[in-house]
């Protein structure tokens, strides 16, 4: 056996290496140097270089490490989403961290570690590597959730996420073990090739394994009934971290779900029923419970559950069009959800903030532009044209209808109707609410400005000129599995 075969290709994982290396540099330097601004800058640099390297890999599918690492358009697309999420999170986090006295360099390190984990998750067809990626992603998340050590809520959030996350991971590992038992391999491509044979031979083992794997990822994307940790964790975690949670791990979870369950187990028609049920439950529970939240982070937590439901609609529909609509939706969701969280972060940075919706009252009077952007993001979340939210929903729903899931679409449309209520509530509070006392102004830095600019432009660009982006998401279908 010659280890030095062509299978080892450092260029293949250069983005991951760069990001990991800068994470470690920041980790070490941070113990010596006091300047946290420098740490943030180095991290940003690492992420941007990583982004550039990832973009180089577009449209040149290649695999290495004995098929364990795969850089097709699908993984490149998702890697871009993850890195962008990390960058925007970093930009929005800085002022918040300073305001809350938790400006630690570990934050940046953990953010990058987690990003690398996600990239590995999206960039492999081997269940073991996907699992490794999941854990590399998750462990930093647990720490980040509990980062505000003096805040009991943050502690609670971290511990809960950790415990439940570990619990859910065990389902995933168990599922992978069963699949291995059924097929003798952890490579999805081989499982897929032999699917009909394996199904005859050991159907129960195969299906149980597949469903357990699905449970594990359903936890990560916060599908009902695996969602119950979400509100508690989102509420307690520092606000920028919550923003990161609501996009990054969710997108990673969906990347894995798409790769494994929609594509890998495409021979398993029965999964459609499961997805159908999950989608309906997730949408209904997420939207209905979001109505009653007074805490904006909790509200956005339920909202993110609901959005997972919409994406599950696309997964139910199956087929290339539906998958590309899901991918498109995730891209759109990244922009407007992070945009919303950026504004919540800005408002939360004020001292004495409790993330209540009432605290937004009077925003429009003091910061009209900020309030308009908030309205833009809320309208996008609710799915109004001409925002990305509308086009995303439109693609998903029309794909669902085309594949004959009319009732599912009706339920989904009704749900998005319900969602208008609670998103509008935020807008109404910002524009029409009378604050109890004078709205204390928020501070505003160039980093925040860039974060808002990127998210707002993305939200509008995907909403007004969806053609180009949709083409991108169609190109990121799997050329190799």
């Amino acid at each position, binding site marked *: 056996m010659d*280890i*030095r075969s062509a299978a*080892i290709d450092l260029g293949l994982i250069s983005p991951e290496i760069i990001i990991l290396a800068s994470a*470690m540099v920041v*980790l*070490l330097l941070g*113990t*010596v140097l006091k300047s946290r601004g420098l740490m943030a800058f180095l991290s940003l640099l690492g992420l941007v270089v990583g982004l550039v390297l990832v973009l180089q890999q577009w449209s040149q599918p290649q695999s290495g490490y004995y098929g364990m690492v795969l850089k097709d358009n699908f993984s490149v697309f998702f890697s871009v989403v993850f890195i962008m999420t990390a960058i925007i999170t970093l930009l929005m986090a800085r002022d918040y961290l300073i305001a809350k006295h938790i400006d630690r360099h570990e934050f940046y390190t953990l953010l990058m570690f987690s990003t690398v984990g996600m990239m590995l998750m999206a960039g492999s067809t081997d269940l073991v590597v996907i699992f490794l990626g999941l854990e590399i992603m998750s462990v930093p998340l647990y720490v980040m959730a509990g980062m505000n050590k003096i805040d009991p809520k943050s502690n609670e959030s971290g511990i809960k996420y950790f415990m439940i996350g570990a619990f859910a991971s065990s389902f995933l590992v168990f599922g992978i073990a069963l699949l291995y038992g059924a097929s003798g391999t952890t490579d999805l491509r081989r499982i897929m090739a032999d699917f009909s044979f394996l199904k005859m031979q050991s159907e129960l083992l195969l299906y149980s394994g597949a469903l357990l794997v699905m449970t594990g990822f359903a936890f990560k994307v916060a599908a009902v009934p695996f969602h119950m940790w979400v509100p508690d964790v989102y509420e307690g975690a520092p606000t920028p971290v919550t923003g990161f949670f609501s996009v990054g791990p969710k997108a990673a979870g969906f990347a894995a779900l798409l790769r494994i369950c929609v594509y890998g187990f495409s021979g398993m028609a029965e999964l459609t029923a499961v997805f159908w049920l999950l989608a309906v439950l997730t949408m209904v529970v997420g939207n209905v419970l979001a109505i009653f939240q007074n805490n904006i982070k909790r509200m956005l937590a339920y909202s993110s559950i609901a959005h997972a439901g919409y994406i599950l609609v696309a997964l139910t529909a199956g087929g290339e069009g539906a998958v590309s609509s899901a991918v498109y939706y995730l891209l759109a969701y990244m922009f407007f959800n992070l945009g919303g969280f950026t504004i919540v972060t800005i408002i939360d940075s004020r001292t004495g903030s409790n993330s209540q919706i009432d605290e937004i009252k009077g925003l429009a009077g003091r910061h009209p532009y900020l309030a308009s952007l908030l309205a833009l993001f809320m309208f996008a979340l609710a799915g109004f044209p001409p925002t990305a939210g509308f086009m995303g929903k439109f693609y998903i729903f029309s794909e669902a209808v085309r594949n004959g899931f009319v009732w599912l679409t009706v339920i989904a449309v009704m749900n998005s109707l319900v969602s208008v209520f609670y998103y509008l509530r935020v807008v109404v509070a910002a524009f029409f609410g009378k604050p109890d006392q004078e709205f204390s102004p928020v501070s505003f830095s160039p980093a925040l400005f860039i974060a808002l600019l990127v998210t707002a432009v993305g939200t509008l660009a995907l909403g007004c000129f969806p053609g180009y982006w949709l083409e991108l998401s169609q190109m990121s279908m799997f050329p190799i599995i």
Partner: protein
Amino acid sequence: MEHFNTFFPIFFLFVFAAILAGVFLLLSVLFGRKTKTAAKGDPYESGMKPIGTTRERFPVRFYLVAILFIIFDIEVVFLYPWAVIYDKLGMFGFMEMLVFVVILLVGYFYVLGKGALKWD
């Protein structure tokens, strides 16, 4: 049969460990001094009192060191299989392991830098 041949050393190790443990226990039963106190009768829980309120305060330093030890201990285990086939891996394997050790060292220096190993 060939399975048996392959796994025989492991089986042997298993039996040998069992015998060794048995012998040590036997020796201490035969020759040890027997003092029966309440603390000695408790089940062993890594230094924690097994029964009592969960709201108890306890010094965290011990656990920190213990956890760090376990982490580095487990990582070092990876060095053994590498050492066994070092010849076959050659320069490439050496560089790989170097990277691995550097990553470990980053963690180690971070721990040092944070002062996690200072007892006071």
